[in-house]
């Protein structure tokens, strides 16, 4: 019994110190925190952009909230305080404009993304060409139709019917074994090798370099435009404008390009 208590206290002590550790570093008194709400697909690129912005603006700390564009917009509508909103589609930012969170003239497109097919490293189903996606028995994972990338994937399949015939989309959709609730889950299912193929953004494929990819010709591909804007109620609007300018600058665009985004 004594041993039990010693163990319990040791564990408790461990957790408490582990929790306390980060707060023991006092923040710089003059620091400002810029809060950026950004689409989940921007995770890698914006983390790097944020670091660059912090270097260029000493004393500024950029805090990100990454998530599905739609849930970010809902959070903002429910009163979340933020300075900048970067969405993966125009619908969400237009909805934010409609509800007065953003001034329409502040919205700018800062990046584009396209679709790509990803395959597990060992390619168990031997998928070589886009036509193979329609082969019966293939395990394909897409994002759900409710999510922007899932909608784009289905639009792309529509366009591909011009190339592969009218039955193509139906045959591909018959191979779908799961409609995931966000694009990162599609990547995970392919990384784990549970799925034979998945359709994601090119930027997601850049973030998972171990996966094989099949590119989709531009004439059938879909372009997702990413808009960004300073929020009307931003507590640090000057700094927020500077962040948006930084994203649009040559340096910022270079980083976006490195992460697989276009402009």
């Amino acid at each position, binding site marked *: 019994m004594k041993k039990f208590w010693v163990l319990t206290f040791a564990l408790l002590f461990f957790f408490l110190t582990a929790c306390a550790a980060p707060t023991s570093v006092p923040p710089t008194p003059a620091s400002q925190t810029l809060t950026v709400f950004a689409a989940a697909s921007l995770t890698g690129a914006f983390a790097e952009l944020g670091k660059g912005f912090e270097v260029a603006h000493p004393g500024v700390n950029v805090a990100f909230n990454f998530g*599905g564009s739609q849930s970010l917009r809902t959070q903002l509508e429910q009163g979340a305080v933020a300075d900048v909103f970067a969405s993966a589609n125009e619908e969400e930012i237009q909805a934010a404009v409609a509800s007065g969170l953003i001034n329409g003239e502040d919205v700018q497109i800062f990046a584009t993304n396209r679709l790509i097919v990803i395959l597990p490293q060992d390619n*168990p189903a031997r998928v070589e060409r886009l036509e193979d996606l329609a082969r019966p028995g293939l395990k394909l994972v897409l994002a759900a139709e409710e999510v922007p990338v899932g909608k784009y994937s289905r639009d792309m399949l529509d366009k591909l019917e011009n190339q592969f015939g009218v039955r193509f989309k139906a045959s591909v959709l018959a191979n779908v074994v799961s409609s995931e609730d966000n694009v990162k889950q599609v990547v995970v299912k392919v990384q784990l*090798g549970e799925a034979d193929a998945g359709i994601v953004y090119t930027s997601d494929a850049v973030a998972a370099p171990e996966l094989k990819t099949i590119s989709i010709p531009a004439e059938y591909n879909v372009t997702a435009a990413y808009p960004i804007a300073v929020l009307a109620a931003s507590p640090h609007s000057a700094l927020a404008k500077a962040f948006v300018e930084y994203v649009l600058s040559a340096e910022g665009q270079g980083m976006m390009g490195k992460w697989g985004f276009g402009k």
Partner: protein
Amino acid sequence: MTGNITLTDHSSSHISIRGKSVWLFVVPASALVCLFALPLFALLWRAVEAGLMGQMLEPTALSALRLSLLTSTLATLAAALTGTPLAFALARWPFRGRAWLELLIDLPVVLPPAVAGLALLMAFGRRGVFGGALSAAGISLPFTTAAVVVAQAFVAAPLYVRAARIGFASVDPQLEEAAYAEGANQWQLFRYVMLPVTGRAILGGLVLCWTRALGEFGATILFAGNLEGRTQTMPLAIYLGLERDLGVALALSALLLAISIILLTILRRLENSAVLS
């Protein structure tokens, strides 16, 4: 059993409530009751506003409901078939490692469902530790309805085993001795003594298991994926419905709430009658 009877007598005895100190109990308790009641009330309110019945007849909602009922029933049946002998052994047989086995059975209850789903994938996924053996036998679990049942059984069956074990353990040892004196074997003891006496505990455990299986979300979406008609159960449809049509999500939530209330009421009845018997 006699202990239980005194307990119920206490709770139903008529001690008059008076004095100002009553508020020390009523105010904080009401705050908690409000926390439980207000969101559920709001959910029902909005669901009715959104046209509850019309939304429930949407094909997505109907197929999710059908799949949920099927899989949770199968998971509960599996729990009954495998969990009953396990609970019996845990309650009646002294053997080495029993404490560890009990710990193992309690683990899925406290694990976050996402951990359960990931563990199932690591074990039975195509690249899982046992995935090769399964595919050699022609079995591929992920993304199938069977995977939903497995995920539900993984998280819900422990609740049944626990309830049944407590039931079996509470049987008067004299009954057991009498059965052995009459020449009964383990099966006869189980069938003609234990089962009739612990019937309510077992039923209660099954209801609990069924409710939990019906509500399973995290392990299912990870291990079985999400496909309408095949792996999209009600909780998954509710979650994805949020991104498309709040009305369907609300209607399904209200329906799930209603089913849970019915099941919990049955459970209460069983518990009360077990105490009084």
